């Protein structure tokens, strides 16, 4: 029992880490809700949410708009972070993530094709339908990428990226074709692809929250599956895992998580790739800790990116084009940050 004191130290460190994380998220949320054209204090926020008579109209609007927006940022970021953690365990590859493994592109393309050519070809397609379409598209594309990248037996990291690029190109051309046919809905679709969280409605928040809640039991089931699979196919088999079944369960769960997460907010690039990397050095690769930690990291990333998007007026940036009355989408900040992070990870891996 000489290991008592190191265990105690580890538990203490873990508790500290958890506390810091929760405080950071709380701080991020209060900034996301409080800061903006109208400053909201906790009391004016609650008053605004309850549409109290002593709250101004601007406060009511700001309270609702920012709360739904922050909630959507947290939900989408959490879902993408968890999805990325599952995909990296499944692929045994630190470069895997929803954007690299075809899942995001598949979901996005499916939604755009549906919006443009679908039976109810109106921009008013509900978030539920969008989420289902995204799940089908993301799963099909995710399964295809996984299947192709495994053809030669094991998954070589560089081969996976090549396949991701290839599939991304094919899907991008399908997206472009759909956009050409989308007519007047094209700007709205383009805005969705670039990942913007503004004007999120409460209904949309509840739908995405409900979707993620439905996927929670599957995610919990995937945690031991992924921990076993991370040891290699042979060791996973040796400890009693039916490997093909575990792979399929993890892939489908990760695809559904990504699809539900992006059904409303569109392309939030690289969250699923970066979030597990931020979490892993702090909590380790055991998925029992990595999954929640990557979820929190993803939520934080999207919250910060959206905070920047909301508060950085493009007119204050030295951009070579007219940006009057425009805001930048959160996805843009994520793409820039994620892209740099991706390059760093490739340099370390290769």
């Amino acid at each position, binding site marked *: 029992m000489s290991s008592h004191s*190191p265990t105690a130290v*580890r538990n203490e460190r873990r508790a500290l880490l958890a506390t810091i994380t929760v405080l950071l998220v709380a701080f991020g949320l209060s900034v996301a809700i409080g800061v903006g054209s109208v400053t909201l204090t906790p009391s004016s926020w609650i008053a605004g949410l309850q549409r109290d008579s002593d709250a101004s109209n601007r406060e009511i609007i700001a309270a609702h708009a920012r709360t739904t927006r922050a909630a959507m940022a947290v939900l989408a970021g959490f879902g993408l972070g968890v999805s990325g953690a599952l995909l990296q365990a499944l692929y045994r590859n630190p470069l895997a993530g929803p954007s690299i493994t075809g899942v995001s592109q598949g979901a996005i393309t499916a939604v755009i094709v549906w919006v443009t050519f679908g039976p109810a070809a109106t921009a008013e397609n509900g978030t539920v339908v969008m989420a289902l379409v995204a799940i089908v598209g993301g799963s099909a594309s995710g399964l295809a990428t996984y299947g192709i990248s495994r053809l030669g037996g094991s998954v070589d990291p560089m081969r996976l990226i090549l396949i991701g690029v290839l599939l991304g190109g094919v899907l991008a051309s399908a997206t472009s074709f759909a956009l050409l046919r989308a007519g007047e809905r094209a700007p709205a679709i383009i805005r969705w692809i670039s990942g913007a969280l503004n004007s999120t409605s409460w209904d949309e928040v509840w739908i995405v929250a409900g979707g993620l809640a439905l996927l929670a039991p599957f995610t919990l089931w995937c945690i031991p599956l992924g*921990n*076993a699979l991370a*040891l*290699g196919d042979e060791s996973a*088999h040796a*400890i*009693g895992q039916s490997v093909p079944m575990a792979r399929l369960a993890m892939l489908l769960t990760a695809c559904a998580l990504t699809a539900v997460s992006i059904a409303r907010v569109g392309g939030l690039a690289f969250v699923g790739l970066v979030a597990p990397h931020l979490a892993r050095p702090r909590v380790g690769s055991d998925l029992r800790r990595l999954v929640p930690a990557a979820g929190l990291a993803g939520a934080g990333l999207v919250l910060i990116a959206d905070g920047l998007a909301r508060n950085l007026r493009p007119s204050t940036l030295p951009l070579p084009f007219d940006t009057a009355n425009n805001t930048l989408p959160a996805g843009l900040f994520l793409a820039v940050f994620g892209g740099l992070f991706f390059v760093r990870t490739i340099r370390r891996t290769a």
Partner: protein
Amino acid sequence: MKRAKTTSSEAQPLEAAVRASGVIAGYGDTPLLHGVDVSAMSGRITTLVGPNGCGKSTMLRACSRLLEPTSGSVLIDGDDVASLSTRELAKRMALLAQSPVVPGHLSVRQLVEQGRYAHVGALGMLRRRDDDAIARAIALTGLSDFEHRDVDTLSGGERQRAWLALALAQESPVLLLDEPTNHLDVGAQWELLELVQQLNRNEGTTVLAVLHELNHAAKLADHLIVIDDGRVVASGAPWEALTVELLRDVFRLDASIIADPRDGLPVIVQHGSVSSQ
């Protein structure tokens, strides 16, 4: 319960824990094994040796169902492994694979916990029994001081002991080892082999090991099986199975076999290749 089982099989030492018969197996269309019979007696150490590409690892893969034989059968305690669920098989047989993947940022304890996969429910929650088995496996492999170290920071020998601890946490009466001493330095190789021997003697674990180094096999084995070109060419106690003629024909080795002055077990003194004779 597992302990009781082991004790009862020790009372009948000639019982085969694993019996493979007429195994034809390979990759693609070309079979590497042409009808191999291998038995691992309960509570004993059986080693498989042979030149590279002879099919010894393929045989181990067939025994652990990593590879499906095109013909023949593998029985564990009388049950065909093909009829068991992967979970049930893992409770009866543990395998230390040849080059397992080591995930980064994973502690020894977290690795060893994976050995309980077949015993826990769908959510992987560890119960008291599981904790006991994990603690025991870590203690038996002498890794108590490393429990919270990340596996990828350990030396080769310590890392291999961590993988062995994972296999022990399965609490299965049969242990399969596929060239467990690969990539270890000489001292660490013997440490690992002695650990396996202790497990066999103290815990009654049945061991079926593929070994690369003949002197390791000769020291460790109760029963030694030599495979060449997908067929069993010799089988028996080390002194019976290993002969100068066999070493010349199968391994193209010019060698003498002497008795270790300490324990009387065979030691192969290698003079050179047959062609330099």
